[in-house]
């Protein structure tokens, strides 16, 4: 990246609030319903209908706002944002303009091991629009088909300060924000289902300049890596424009994930005259201390705090702790595994972290699976590590067992039983195998006795081969030496 310019990025995230019903009517928010089945006179904007606020949507938004360290405005007002679009039945969106629910928060992100604080400007509540289909499968339609199932689903719009200075920081912010929201379970954040969407404002300015440059608004980025790619492209584009003596124009650009470029969306002059005014159909919301405190009391352990606990309680390294808390499902998996192992034996927390971050995540990654889709249940991973710790199996055997667990979803005990992989720790049996090995290797025994101590490794190998890897390695070592010294 060109170091003559500084990049300035602010993000607007729309996150679908996890409620059963829409924000202003009692229709279901279910994503998988048939088109136009979760609709009613209210969300299809029939004449005479009126909105009634879903209290849960307010509670979950406030929960998010508290987790992001925002000030909660005691008085909040809904406003109508007016524009014509066929996915917006009333041709105005109920949103907030002056007096949103929350303002002035912040979120820590970490990029290249540096912690940076990103400001949150505001969080407001608004209703989602419907969906327009332009094609059915491969068939392009000459019309648009409207599905109003999504119309009126509650969204929290989280607007950041223009505090990010690189596409990587933007990606880190989105990852941290998504992670935080998943921790407190106020949204599913499922990007594929459009439940966590991001628009970006981006500009460049010569290093040292205080004023912001002219910004472009980027839309249509459907993954966090897509956001990073689009921003990286856009930075380059803006630099080229300026370097070639051009001027950046304020416009909305759409990311084309196939061509990997941003394209200008021709916007009409008046496209942004939204004519906001307070919605007279919805009375103001006045959140008292009790309301806010009740929510505060129910906020679960947030990522930062949980990381500190993992380090203290389990002795994890900062690095491992960071990896594990980066996803709530992952840290939940980890703690489930640890709990299950601790029922059997002690000191498993660290080896479980290793198994999780190296073996399991590697395998999941290759198979393109998430931790939630892991074929190895958390309890089973815990049991596996406990079995190693109790010397029931060796580390080497454990890898074979793990492979089998991943492929068959079975628990480690079953696999060990089925495959006869239990470690041989019976002293007499090991003595028997060791003696056989010694008897079969007179040459090596002679070398050993001649002072070449390393020669014992070859005999150990033979013992392991004879026992098909099941002999307890420590016992083999000890017994072999005892026998050889006789």
């Amino acid at each position, binding site marked *: 990246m060109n170091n003559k310019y500084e990049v300035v990025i602010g993000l607007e995230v729309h996150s679908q609030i996890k409620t059963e019903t829409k924000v202003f009517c009692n229709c279901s928010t279910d994503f998988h319903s048939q088109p136009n089945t979760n609709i009613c006179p209210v969300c299809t*904007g029939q004449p005479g209908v*009126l909105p009634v606020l879903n209290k849960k949507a307010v509670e979950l938004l406030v929960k998010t706002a508290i987790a992001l360290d925002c000030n909660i405005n005691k008085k909040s007002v809904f406003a109508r944002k007016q524009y014509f679009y066929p996915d917006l039945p009333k041709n105005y969106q109920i949103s907030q303009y002056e007096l949103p629910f929350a303002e002035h928060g912040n979120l820590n992100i970490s990029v290249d091991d540096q912690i940076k604080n990103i400001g949150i400007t505001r969080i407001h509540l608004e209703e989602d629009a419907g969906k327009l289909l332009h094609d059915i499968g491969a068939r392009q339609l000459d019309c648009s088909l409207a599905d109003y199932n999504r119309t009126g689903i509650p969204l929290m719009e989280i607007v950041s300060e223009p505090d990010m200075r690189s596409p990587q920081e933007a990606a880190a912010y989105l990852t941290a924000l998504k992670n935080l929201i998943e921790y407190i379970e106020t949204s599913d954040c499922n990007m594929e289902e459009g439940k966590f969407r991001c628009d970006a404002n981006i500009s460049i300015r010569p290093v040292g300049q205080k004023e912001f440059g002219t910004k472009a608004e980027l839309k249509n980025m459907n993954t966090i890596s897509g956001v990073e790619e689009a921003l990286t492209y856009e930075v380059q584009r803006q630099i080229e424009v300026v370097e070639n003596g051009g001027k950046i124009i304020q416009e909305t650009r759409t990311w084309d994930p196939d061509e990997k470029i941003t394209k200008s969306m021709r916007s009409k002059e008046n496209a942004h005259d939204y004519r906001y005014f307070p919605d007279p159909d919805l009375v103001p919301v006045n959140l008292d201390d009790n309301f806010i405190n009740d929510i505060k009391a129910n906020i679960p352990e947030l990522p930062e705090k949980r990381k500190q606990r993992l380090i203290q309680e389990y002795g994890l390294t900062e690095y491992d702790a960071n990896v594990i808390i980066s996803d709530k499902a992952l840290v939940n998996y980890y703690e489930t595994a640890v709990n299950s192992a601790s029922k059997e034996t002690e000191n498993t927390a660290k080896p479980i972290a290793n198994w999780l971050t190296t073996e399991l995540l590697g395998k999941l990654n290759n198979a393109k699976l998430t931790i939630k889709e892991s074929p190895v249940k958390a309890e089973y991973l815990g049991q596996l590590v406990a079995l190693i710790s109790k010397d029931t199996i060796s580390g080497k055997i454990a890898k074979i067992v793990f492979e089998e667990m991943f492929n068959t979803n079975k628990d480690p005990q079953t696999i060990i039983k089925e495959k006869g992989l239990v470690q041989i720790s019976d002293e007499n049996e090991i003595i028997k195998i060791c003696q056989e090995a010694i008897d079969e290797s007179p040459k090596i025994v002679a070398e050993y006795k001649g002072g070449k101590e390393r020669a014992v490794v070859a005999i150990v190998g033979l013992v392991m081969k004879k026992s098909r890897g099941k002999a307890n390695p420590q016992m083999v070592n000890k017994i072999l030496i005892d026998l050889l010294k006789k």
Partner: protein
Amino acid sequence: MNEIIKMSATTLAEKIKNKDLTSVEVTQAFINRAKEVDPKIKAYISITEEYALKQAKESDKKIASGKEIGQLEGVPIAIKDNILIENIKMTASSKILENYVAPYDATVIEKLKSSGAVFIGKTNLDEFAMGSSTENSAFFTTRNPWNTEHIPGGSSGGSASAVSAMTAPLALGTDTGGSIRQPASCCGIVGVKPTYGRVSRFGAVAFASSLDQIGPMSKTVEDSALLLNVIAGYDKKDSTSIDVAVPNYLDTIKQDIKGLKIGLPKEYFIDGLDSDVKKSINEAIEIYKKLGAEIIEISLPHTDYAVAIYYIICCSEASANLARYDGVRYGFRAECDNLLDEYQKSRGQGFGPEVKRRIMLGTYALSAGYYDAYYGKAQKVRTLIKQDFENAFKTVDLILTPSSPTPAFKIGEKSSDPLQMYLSDIFTISCNLAAIPGMSIPCGFSQKGIPIGMQLLAKNFDEQTMFKSAYSYQQSTNWHKQFPNI
């Protein structure tokens, strides 16, 4: 003339309950009357004969079987055609909704259904309730039964005309700036605009959400009180309806008004006041004195600004409320090649001139750069108007004014000058801005024989004082016992 149609709703309810009359007999009498005289006055957009007779039969069955019956069991009522009755056409007197069939019941309709009322027809109005004469109906102009060359007032002109012409004993209207009281005054009947929030707005086509209220229209004060008993109350579907217990308005209606303090706002007794109106109001004041009321001159200093801010507020809100009529999900669609043209032509052809004028005014007032000067300013002046009334009600119990500066004017007289038309609402609109209850009752006739109405205004949720004052007056006069010769 059939005696049934001269009876009050209270009397009819009593006679039906006591089986002196059947609902079918009563309903048929009003339908016959409507068939006879409505072609001359055109109060109805549709007479729902089949629907009404079916309901009437059910009521009769219920009464015959001794089941519990409602307060309006078997009594016919006409409904302004901007209120939704499930499965019945609802046009709002607009071409854009000409073929719209209501998919649900308004809350007032649900309440009326459970009270046993019989829906006799849908009445004409100024398109989307915007107007003072019904001349803005997309279909036809309703006539004043007292003189068919004159307007019936508006926007609830159809309901007023229907009751006045005895084609229905009761009607529902909606009142945003006088749309119940002014036509009631024009047609010589009683019309009540309840306190904002007293009656649910759910299912009444929104014009200006912060001002609209549904209210009763009838020949007698008692009938309006009875009808308000049925339709009033908190509705969880309307966030702006207010959870205040509904008294039985009939319980207190007969109380005397000795010592009641009645205020006469000096700003309402201006030079432009028609001399016949002035004479009738002065006579009414004398009657109140005889009834023992104390008459006090008061001031409502911001009255002169009411029309100006009313038009800013109602048009701004309407511009958003009417955005949904776009031909996408329902209503008139002008087929075009592209979406933008389709929007503009559907709305351009679907709405009449007055509706478009108000949408334009409201859109302008909310557009970028004008909000503070118009909408913002109007909201503040609205606060001052509210305060005027709060101050006045510190010294008086009731305020008395003319309902309109002139008796009903001739059809066509003001239709070319929108501003003059707006100024005819001058006495009724402050009541909506202040959210207080108001009503119009007949208090005389002009020399040409056109009815004159008097307006009573009361404190928030003090409809009881208003009703008993109106009742006392009506008991002392005979205006309500006169019938137009149609």
